[in-house]
């Protein structure tokens, strides 16, 4: 059982950002990228702002290998509770891998080996006694490609409840409505809950998947490029939605869209070649990055 292939998307080039280059203290950008590529150790630049937040997920020295190939190197980051955190970085840098490590979807890949620790609300994610199923129930996941089940819209939304054995119709209906409202889909589908979910448009399907993810009332919502297959209108709706979810849910999302990251997230983490390069408040990362590589990436100078 592999995970679906991720489509590699070109980074939009027409981002207009006030280039923060001048304010950057560090100048040795190219040589540091080369040394990272050569496998030399690298210290993540974590902004102080992170420390002020209450962390729902703590990642400590996390390493991951696909067979012989190491995909994540010494990742250390705290995901603040009730905030939206964006993961950015060039294609193949390990964003999806990190995201899937959080709810242990990587367990399904045989060649995966890990080292280090993750704590969800203080409890170990990778401990030997952890019930993976219970763990995943505490997190919702939204994939890059919308993946509704070939069932009715209603059944799709209440799937997390169904697998918990809940059959009480009134509970199911209430959760369905709440989740669909939460994902801003309710008005569009309230008259066709019995219809197949496959009849929805791509954007609606993605919002349905978000509804399904929040129906379980997870502690953390993991989103892997949720808008990559959508048009700007649908993207806008989902961005609004993420914005609304802030506070109620902790969101960890991967995106290639710099504007999206800057618009929707509170914190942004920049990854490169399996390393976490710089991690801080979104405003700081975009306007006032500590590292030149970060600035180069978000202004589209490499990636």
């Amino acid at each position, binding site marked *: 059982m592999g995970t679906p292939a991720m489509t590699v998307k070109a980074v939009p080039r027409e981002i207009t950002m006030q280039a923060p280059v001048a304010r950057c203290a560090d100048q040795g950008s190219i040589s540091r990228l080369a040394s990272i590529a050569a496998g030399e150790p690298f210290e993540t630049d974590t902004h102080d702002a992170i420390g002020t937040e209450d962390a729902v997920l703590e990642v400590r020295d996390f390493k991951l290998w696909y067979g012989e190939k190491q995909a994540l190197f010494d990742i250390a980051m705290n995901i603040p509770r009730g905030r939206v955190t964006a993961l950015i970085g060039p294609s193949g840098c390990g964003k999806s891998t990190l995201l899937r490590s959080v709810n242990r*979807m990587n367990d399904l890949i045989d060649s995966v080996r890990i080292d280090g620790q993750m704590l969800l609300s203080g409890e170990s994610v990778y401990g030997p006694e952890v019930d993976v199923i219970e763990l*995943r129930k505490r997190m919702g996941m939204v*994939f890059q*490609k919308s993946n509704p089940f*070939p069932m009715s819209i209603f059944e799709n939304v209440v*799937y997390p409840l169904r697998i918990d054995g809940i059959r009480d119709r009134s509970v199911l209906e209430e959760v369905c409505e709440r989740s669909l409202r939460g994902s801003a889909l309710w008005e569009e589908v309230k008259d066709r809950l019995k219809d197949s979910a496959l009849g929805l448009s791509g954007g609606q399907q993605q919002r349905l998947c978000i509804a*399904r993810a929040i129906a379980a009332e997870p502690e953390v919502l993991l989103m892997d490029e949720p808008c990559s297959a959508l048009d700007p209108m649908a993207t806008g709706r989902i961005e609004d939605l993420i914005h609304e979810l802030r506070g109620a849910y902790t969101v960890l999302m991967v995106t290639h869209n710099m504007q999206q990251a800057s618009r929707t997230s509170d914190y942004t983490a920049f990854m490169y070649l399996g390393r976490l390069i710089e991690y801080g408040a979104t405003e700081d990362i975009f306007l006032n990055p500590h590292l030149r590589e970060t600035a180069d990436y978000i202004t589209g100078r490499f990636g």
Partner: protein
Amino acid sequence: MPDKSFTGVERRRTTRLSVRIIDRVARVLITVGGIGTILAVLMIMVFLIWVVVPLFTGGEIGEGATIPRSNAEAPLRMGVDEYRIMGFLLLRNGQIRVYRLDTGETIETLTPFADTPPSSAAMARSSPEVAFGFPDGSMVPGRMEFSSRFLDKAHVPAEFHDMKPGEPRRFESGMVQKTPEGQYRIQTFALTLEEDRTARVEPPSPIVRMDLTIKPTGPVYALLTEDSRILIREATEKRNLLTGRTRVTWSGDEIALNPPGDRPLPDRVLLSDGGRFVYLVWRDGFLARLGRVEGELQIVETVDLLRDDDAEITALSFITGKSTFLVGDSRGRVRAWFPVRPERSGTLDGTVLTNAHELLTEDGSVSPVTAFGPSSRARLVSVGYADGSVRLFHVTSGKLVAARPTALAQPVQTIVITPKEDGIVAVSRREIATFAVLAEHPDVSIVSLFGKVWYEGYPEPENVWQSTGGTDAFEPKLGLVPLIFGTVKATLYSMLFGLPIALLAAIFASEFLDPRAKSMVKPTIEIMASLPSVVLGFLAALVIAPFVEDIVPHCLTAFFTIPISLMLGAYVWQLLPRPFAIRMGRFRIFFMFLCFPIGLRAAAMLGPVIESALFAGDIRMWLDGQRGSAFGGFAFLLFPMVGVAMLILTTRGLDFKLIPMTSHLDRVPLAVFDLCRFLVTLLLTLILTALLAFILTRAGLDTRGAVFGTYSQRNALVVGFVMGFAIIPIIFTIAEDALSAVPDHLRSASLGAGATPWQTAIRIVVPTAMSGLFSAVMIGLGRAVGETMIVLMAAGNTPIMDWSIFSGFRTLSANLAVELPEAVRDSTHYRTLFLAALTLFAMTFVVNSVAEVVRARFRRKAVQL
């Protein structure tokens, strides 16, 4: 080509010619191959239909060739030779006129009893024996037959040399025909009287009615004398092996007849097959049946053959086999009667005469029936009517094969079917008419093939397949329903066994098995599919069947102990400390397999206990119905049903109430609680089963004769097991492919939502792969329907209709394999076998078409993924 392309840029490369040619050739080849396959299948079907269709073409009575007749007297008997060139008429005074059938010219006239004409005569139908009774109470047996021999070339007159083959010519006291091979065959008629066997009635009284029948030991005669006595005379012939002489000893019975209600002497005396019964028949329809009760000849039954007052019997005759007799009356009705032995008869000898068929005219004409001419080979009978019409009926199927409304100008006096059933000769006062007859498959109709038919000697209409029998009088019974039933039964039981295993194995392989292990397991199972079914059949018949025979109770018990031990295992697993359980999660499946031997062991231990408790200590005897009450059978049947019902009840209904009560519990107490709940459910199931079984037993019902029945070694259980084994690989492979084809992103979505792999499999993967699973099942079904060797070897091949898991059956395919090599080409049997093949073809065709349609519907849903 246009000079300039619309983009303004010219494509510089061109597709190479070879590529284009290969493309074209491939397209043609694929088209030809596809259409060829369809054509081949169609051709097979057309061929099958081609062979089958003549079964349903009706018969025909051709134009008659009429010759005038000088004597107007109704002959006692008429006979025709097998080549249809000469015939004889036996007249009331004992005179026999032998004549040419084509011209009517008399060849010879025999007057064996010139001085004392016989007072009665009797003649066997399918053998040459005759007997004459005389006014002095004596009876002379004899033989009356056509015989043929080849003439010595030297004796053939010169003018015969230019004869055309087949052309008949008079020669001496017979007729000569030239065969296609150029030989000369002479046909003569001979009457030999065996005066030395003359029997006498003591005290003497004229013999007024008589009949005879032939037993393997010798002829039996029934005589009615004028002074109202019935005598049975049975000749037992013993051949002395040394001298070659035959000694005859006579035995017999005699009773004085006191027919009820001061009746005159009966109008007809009939002696049935083997001398079993004597029927005394009066014109008004009254019949008295004489039979032996405790060795004593007496009237055992009286019947009104007509059931209405104003009609009277105008013709009466046995048909071949002398068990069924036909009664023709003055209203044009023909009824067939035969003795049957029903469960409750009400007669002294347990036998009841039954009116099974009524042969009606096509146009509703009510002219009196005047003559019967039964065939000596089949249950075909020609019937002559007073209006001169002639009809041909098949008695068993009740089918009017052919009719000729104005065959003769006068009432038919006598009628016969020629020995080869290719003609009818009918006699009236003025004429003798010969008709060619075409009746190739008179006994076959849609009803006789697919419906119940009332065969001779059966208490009621039944579906029977029995194509060959021991005696000449045997009637082939070609009902396809028992074979179709067998096919369905084989399919059902093998699917019952194979389907769950194959589907669960496929789910396991695609969803749970390590990919590396799967890459080894799958080809292995696929190799299993190539195991020749004859090997499986051989194993089933020679290894499994004798083995299962010894451990029937254990096998039955295993059906329950294995699932229960699996479930119990699951509950015990929950009891394990949580960290340990999670760490050992990967090996869960091996623990699961451990439950199998435990279940088997439990079955081995419980089997004998259950046998002695429920099946009176011997299940074979219990199945025979000799011992024990019906309780055990019901208990066995009801247990799984009640179990499933209870499970649904406790999980669906009770959970609501239980969840709030238990939700605060810890894991281990919860597991204990679950285990207890399971055990209580099991106990309740047992109690409820026992209660229901008791009630049903009290109500007088019994499973024996329905789901259970007499044990035969080769039975549906064995076939189901082995054929299930044969269909598992194919269902497994296709189902596994279908499950693996479910896109991974659905699995990720489900697992990401926190579903267990099992929930993912059941709720997401299986429904999504439904179309593929369905076609896997249907292909397995198709294979089971057509499977031949296993059922041939392990099903016992008894064409009985009985759902019992312990009885054998015969399938269409096995029947074809057994009988087609022996069937005479173009015979009814042969064509019926082809119809069986066509039926099989249709069944698989329907199964596959349904599969295709349903699959297409499922796929339309799945295509949106």
